[in-house]
């Protein structure tokens, strides 16, 4: 017997303050509204202070562990380039990575001994397709740079088997009141972009 067969595993990573938690809220709400069992796992606390943030979203007919195992993520949403490398071992054989162009230099590079690696796409794309999304650029065009995270979720939505109507409802339920429309615009831009790629 195989446990968790047919479960979709989505790993989201980025930097505290980037809206990774909101993105995983939208995604897990959409999966719930589509009738799936959902488990979402995140760690708060220290991660709010500009540290590395990762959330696990899993959905399917039946889900046991709230954590994705290494080598089994179907999708990775990297909201910051370096963070994609940090969690690279989670990627499954047939995974798709959605990579935001945002680059945030950690203090260990600015006032420490480390270098920010510049060949991230090369490492990420060695075995799997990578969809690069200019989240901040698109968000600025839409009219609010803070919606970059919704652009990325929009890109993910183009790859998942959840109807657009349900995504719309999930965005509306998850974003701060008054920002529904602009977030929906950002979402659709991301969706359009990924729909034509990968």
């Amino acid at each position, binding site marked *: *017997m*195989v*446990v*968790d067969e047919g479960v979709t595993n989505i790993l989201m990573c980025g*930097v*505290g303050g980037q809206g990774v938690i909101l993105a995983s809220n939208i995604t*897990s*709400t959409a999966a*719930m509204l589509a009738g799936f*069992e*959902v*488990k*979402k*796992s*995140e*760690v*708060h*606390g*220290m*991660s*709010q*202070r*500009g*540290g*590395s943030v990762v959330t696990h979203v899993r959905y399917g007919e039946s889900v*046991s*562990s*709230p*954590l994705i*195992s*290494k*080598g*089994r993520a179907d999708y990775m949403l990297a909201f910051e380039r*370096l*963070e994609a*490398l*940090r969690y*690279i*071992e*989670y*990627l*499954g*054989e047939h995974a798709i990575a959605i990579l935001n162009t945002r680059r*945030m*230099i*950690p*203090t*260990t*590079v*600015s*006032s*420490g001994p*480390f*270098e*920010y*690696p510049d060949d991230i796409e090369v*490492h990420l794309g*060695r*075995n799997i397709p990578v969809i690069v999304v200019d989240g901040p650029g698109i968000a600025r065009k839409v009219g609010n*740079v803070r919606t970059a995270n919704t652009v990325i979720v929009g890109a993910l939505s183009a790859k998942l088997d959840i109807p657009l109507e349900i995504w719309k409802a999930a965005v509306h339920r998850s974003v701060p009141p008054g920002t529904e429309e602009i977030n929906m615009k950002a979402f659709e831009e991301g969706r359009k972009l990924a729909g034509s790629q990968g």
Partner: protein
Amino acid sequence: MMRELLSGNEAIAEGIFEAGVRVAVGYPGTPSTEILQNVVKHPQVYAEWCPNEKVALEVAFGASFAGRRSIAVMKHVGLNVAADPLFTFSYTGVNAGCVIITADDPGMHSSQNEQANRHYARAAKIPMFEPTNSQEAKDLLKVAFDVSERFDTPVLYRITTRVAHSSTIVDLGRREKEYEMPIGHDAESMRKFVMVPANARVKHTRIEQRLMDLQEFSNEFNKIEWKGKKVGIVTNGVARHYAREVFPDASILKLLMSWPIPDERVRELADAVDQLIIIEELDPIIEETIKVMGIDCIGKDKVPITGELSPDVLRRAFFDLDEAHEVIGLPDIPPRPPVMCPGCPHRGLFYMLKKFDLIVSGDIGCYTLAVLPPLSAMDTCLCMGASVSGAHGMEKAIKEEQARRVVSVIGDSTFVHSDITGLVNTVYNKGTSTIILLDNRTTAMTGGQHHPATGRTLEGEETNRLDFVKVAKAVGVEYVQKFDPYDLDETKDALMKALQFKGTNVMISTRPCVLAPRKIRFDHVVWSDTDNCKRCGMCLKLGCPAIERHEPGTDGEKFDVIVNDELCVGCDLCLQMCKFDALKRREG
């Protein structure tokens, strides 16, 4: 029926509402903080932040004595603070049900240790429940209250970070009618609730009997999920889900009630399977209990005793499997630790402490991050409140000249939590140390909760605001200074005066947290003029995440400094560091 995707903490808040709880109290601490923050949505439940966990547990005891259901919420180390009332509360028992939530943090995502609080149930001889997902987190709470009343005992309710901060789908219900008992005010009640030796001796005999009764209940309540007969697993908490994923064919006894351990169910499972495995996070409490029963099992000889478990960890432990596909030739990945926010009022002070090369007795809060480079300005951090008392000990142990270099740093919420007594001790015993109170007017590390010095209650009402200057004077501190940590010269000046003063003295920082209760941004940001920049790196010594070093720099320079204007809030600390007019203000 309403269905919602809720975190374990949100679900417990709903459970508190549905179980008809009257009084809910606690002190913020990751991963437990969101429980009380969500209880506030339900005005039928009275909720409050207390100064510390001991006070919270005593308030909950009082409410239980008065005949209404109550709950006290805290993180694992908070239960250490509340351990004194807990052990004797076990003796008195309850009038109305009382549950104590302990939120443990295996893996130490946001804690100073990863102690296993299941020990407390065994040590205090009280029952423990452990939900494994959000639905159980809500529903099991009602069972816990029933057990509290039926067996006349406080109940420990243990969650871990992975239950508290994972979200699963929850079916919501209605609020039960409040359980009401008349307040005890007669000889019988006094024998029950006044723990003098004569009464306590009688009680000890009773709680030993209570444990046996609870074990019988545990045998009825805990169920075996029967599958194959090759492997049987006994497990608790979220580990149950990892066990199921890694051992899909095993029969599993999941201990929703994890103390006392159901001996008959364990024997039944052990007799039926070829091999018994115990999967529990941290200490081998289930395993040791089962081994004492004379049953052979596999436990910590395979399963790690440190850190958080996961399906990956179990696969490696039992099958030597690592499913991550190998990634070859990856560059060194720079760590990204949490840092003080851009504009954090703590930064300027710690820069000065480092510059003065002082011995810094630290405490629990955002400022503990000052231990990381480039600030590297903290020498000890033990527990809530240890900074002031620890500094006093340092000072008494070494020569006066060296003792002058000892300072303690402490946040406002932590000071109220457990450092007022430390300050009293220092004054009483003629200490001369400098206590630096980082009053950012909120409990910042846990996301900005009110406390007795913010002037508001958990429910948002205005209330008395504890005045730190008056407190310091009242306990006998003669010299109290206030300083603006955004002004490096002023900070330096205050520090020099403090170090020269021969007696206990207090410095109070005057700037609020930049994140809570509202985000602070000044009317400008800083930009860097690379033509003027001499690449001296002084601004980088502040460790501000908005000041980025980009390699290689322009015009053959090794690097450029770029101020990230999305992160900069305009605190101007870096302007004071730059001697070459390379950092400038721009309207933002």
